């Protein structure tokens, strides 16, 4: 197989992981914005607790993506950097303010002081803006109109990113992040905080946001007929099985949420995101940026890509076990070496309790 294609698949997986982990981070910020009233404080705590140990690691996937892209497809990266200058600059500002705001408010000593309150607002506002512009940029690429007909990338071709299609996909990206986060937070609220009311509230939020995402997705698909014909053609032909699977998984997610099988719902929403991005990737194949940049005409030399792939494999050998360890310590209730005895006991007990309440 073509090494560039292999590398592209690896990058696409990184994109999926970023969407699943980083997307939930953004979504948590979204819910932070809407945490008002009686339970606001509790919700903030839940979100802090859920994000604290993992946000920085989640975020590195994005860096991996950027770096991977300019390694493997230098000329496509060049074109994207110019053509998406404005949305990316906004995304960048969003990411920067969001990351610092989260830390500043987490470590603010006086939790209700002005300092913490202001940064908290910054955190939630940028958590909404950033995925919106990421979605918009993706749609602008897919539309095939990002680069004007002479093939020279320009930064001031605004029509591509203010089309109805791009706007819908932007909002959909926000809604998807919110759904992801709500489902993660349901699990967190039930299993870590044991809070009945909070669990129910996030269940409702997940259902509503899921429905909104689905509607926007359908709308986006309709708009793509005229505005992103490449994608639409691809969806109908090559990607059709994946598109259908995406829809079915979405439905299944709603059903499991409805029946309160939250851990299964969490797995399903991850699969849903993966399939959604998968269907987009498949339908855009073989273009990196339709209609000018294809895998073949923008890939780096095969020897270089081979070295990169070897590098990635070596990196993953260190990375994956470490990542698993991180999540085992903080997120998964399975005993793992290195825990304190008291913590070991606490986790074991918690797992037993969960198994008794929800035999699955």
């Amino acid at each position, binding site marked *: 197989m073509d090494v560039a294609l292999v590398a592209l698949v690896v990058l696409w997986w990184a994109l999926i992981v970023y969407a699943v982990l980083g997307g939930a981070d953004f979504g948590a910020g979204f819910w932070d914005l809407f945490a008002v009233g009686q339970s*606001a404080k509790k919700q*903030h*705590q839940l979100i*802090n607790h859920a994000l604290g*140990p*993992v946000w*920085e*690691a989640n*975020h*590195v996937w994005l860096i*991996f993506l*950027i*770096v*991977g892209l*300019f*390694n493997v497809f*230098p*000329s496509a*990266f*060049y074109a994207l*950097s*110019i053509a998406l200058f404005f949305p*990316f*600059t906004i995304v*960048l*500002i969003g990411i*920067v303010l969001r*990351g*610092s705001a*989260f*830390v*500043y*408010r987490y*470590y*603010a*000593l006086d*939790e209700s002081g002005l*300092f*913490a*309150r202001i940064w*908290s607002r910054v955190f939630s506002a940028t958590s909404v803006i950033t995925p919106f512009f990421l979605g918009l940029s993706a749609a602008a690429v897919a539309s095939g109109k990002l680069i004007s007909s002479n093939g020279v990338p320009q*930064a*001031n071709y605004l029509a591509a990113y203010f089309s109805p299609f791009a706007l819908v996909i932007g909002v959909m990206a926000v809604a998807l992040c919110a759904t992801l986060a709500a489902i993660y937070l349901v699990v967190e609220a039930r299993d870590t905080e044991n809070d009945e009311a909070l669990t129910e509230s996030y269940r409702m939020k997940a259902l509503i946001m899921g429905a909104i995402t689905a509607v926007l997705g359908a709308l986006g698909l309709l708009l793509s007929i005229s505005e992103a014909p490449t994608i639409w053609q691809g969806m109908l032909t090559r990607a059709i099985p994946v598109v259908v699977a995406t829809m079915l998984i979405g439905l299944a997610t709603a059903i499991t949420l409805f029946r309160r099988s939250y851990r299964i719902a969490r797995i399903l929403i991850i699969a849903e995101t993966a399939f959604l991005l998968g269907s987009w990737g498949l339908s855009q194949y073989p273009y990196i940026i339709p209609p000018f940049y294809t895998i073949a005409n923008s890939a780096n*030399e095969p*020897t*270089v890509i081979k*070295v*990169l792939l070897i*590098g990635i494999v070596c*990196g993953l050998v260190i*990375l994956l076990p*470490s990542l698993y*360890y*991180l999540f085992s*310590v*903080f997120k998964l209730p399975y005993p793992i070496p*290195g*825990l304190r005895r*008291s*913590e070991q006991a606490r986790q074991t007990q918690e797992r037993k309790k969960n198994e008794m309440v929800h035999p699955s």
Partner: protein
Amino acid sequence: MMPDLLAARAQMGTSLAFHIIFSVLGVGVPLMLCISEGLALRTKNPVWMMLTRRWARAAAILFAIGAVSGTILSFELGLLWPTYTRFAGAVVGLPFLLEGFAFFTEAIFLGLYLYGWDRLSARAHWLCSFPIWISGMASAWFIVSANSWMNTPAGFVIKNGKVVDINPYQAIFNPSTPFETVHMILASYVATGFGMAAVYAFAYLRGKRDEYYRKGLMLAMILALVATPLQLISGDFNARFLYVYQPVKFAAMEGVFRTQSGAPISIGGLADPSTGQVKYALEIPDALSVLADYNPNTVVKGLDQFPREDWPNSTLVHTSFDGMVGSGMFALLVALVFWGLFLLKKRTLPSNRWLLWGVILAGPLSFLAVELGWMVTELGRQPWTIYGYLRTKDAVTTAPLLNVSFLVFSLIYVLLAVALIWLLLKVARRPLPQVTLSEEGYDVKEPEIEKVGV
């Protein structure tokens, strides 16, 4: 209005100058954490644990800002310099990618370290600090090797205007890699050592002299003492390397306009390209030729050997270079006097006011040396981005409104810096944590709960 090229350069420079402060701490502080926590476990002295905890709390905030400012850079490479990134991505992308893995490992173990105090066993927790400092050092190595490549490009051939025959290994291990990476990593330890020592020296001056402050000061000064002499030696190697590989930069940094044998060293002063002289400088005859090649008759190439449009800004480069070397010399002097007095006074920490002020000054000066050193490297490479291959004016993006972008990012940096300093000062003023030793390891009670909720 600022021209676009100037705005892009200014934005890049500001972003890097901001980021490097956190990178330096990201390389240096984990080593300190590892040592002090190791000492806490070994000696069973809770004071070491108190130090570790306090540093870790500050590190959590600093590292996050390091990650955020680094993210700005990885975007800016593309957004501001797309032509550079297309070229560099094709040839020397590998270290950027490997750097990504190093960050990842660092972020994962940092998460475990900072949030795992009560979950992990004492030993497992300590072990988590090793991957943090190793990967911090590795990321510095990778990124600086990419920068070395910009100074001495290698591992590719240009045929018909196309970059071909790429060899990523040669690109990473380009001629200046060993010099720049070693010098940078040492710089991180020098700056971290003096930076932390300055904090404790300040407390010391104000009469806080219990064990906690003594141990903090001592550990930081040990790091500084070990790293500083090595740093000066390594800098000397860098300079001699430049004499051969980047003679333009060498000439600019030493303020040599006229090619000559028996060239003098000009210390201080203002290099003035219009008259070709370094005004107000202290000159040591023959010294430069000796430094460059151990021979007073060696001919040193001056800027007059090169076309005028290839000159970097010699005034800035020369002054930056002197500032770096001067700061380094001062730091070395402080470290030597400090430990000299320590030995003379039968192993008690010196409390001479002047010396303590020297330590306090050496802290910011070492950070200044890092910034100035980078000015030598980056300004000295101008007008090239990739030395000999890609000029800075050809590397810049065609996107408009770069001056607005520069303004916005500058404001963001000011905002982040003000908030950061405010927060760190508050953290520093908190009462020390209560540390007790139990059979499961150290139990730490922070004086108040730190969880937030608004």
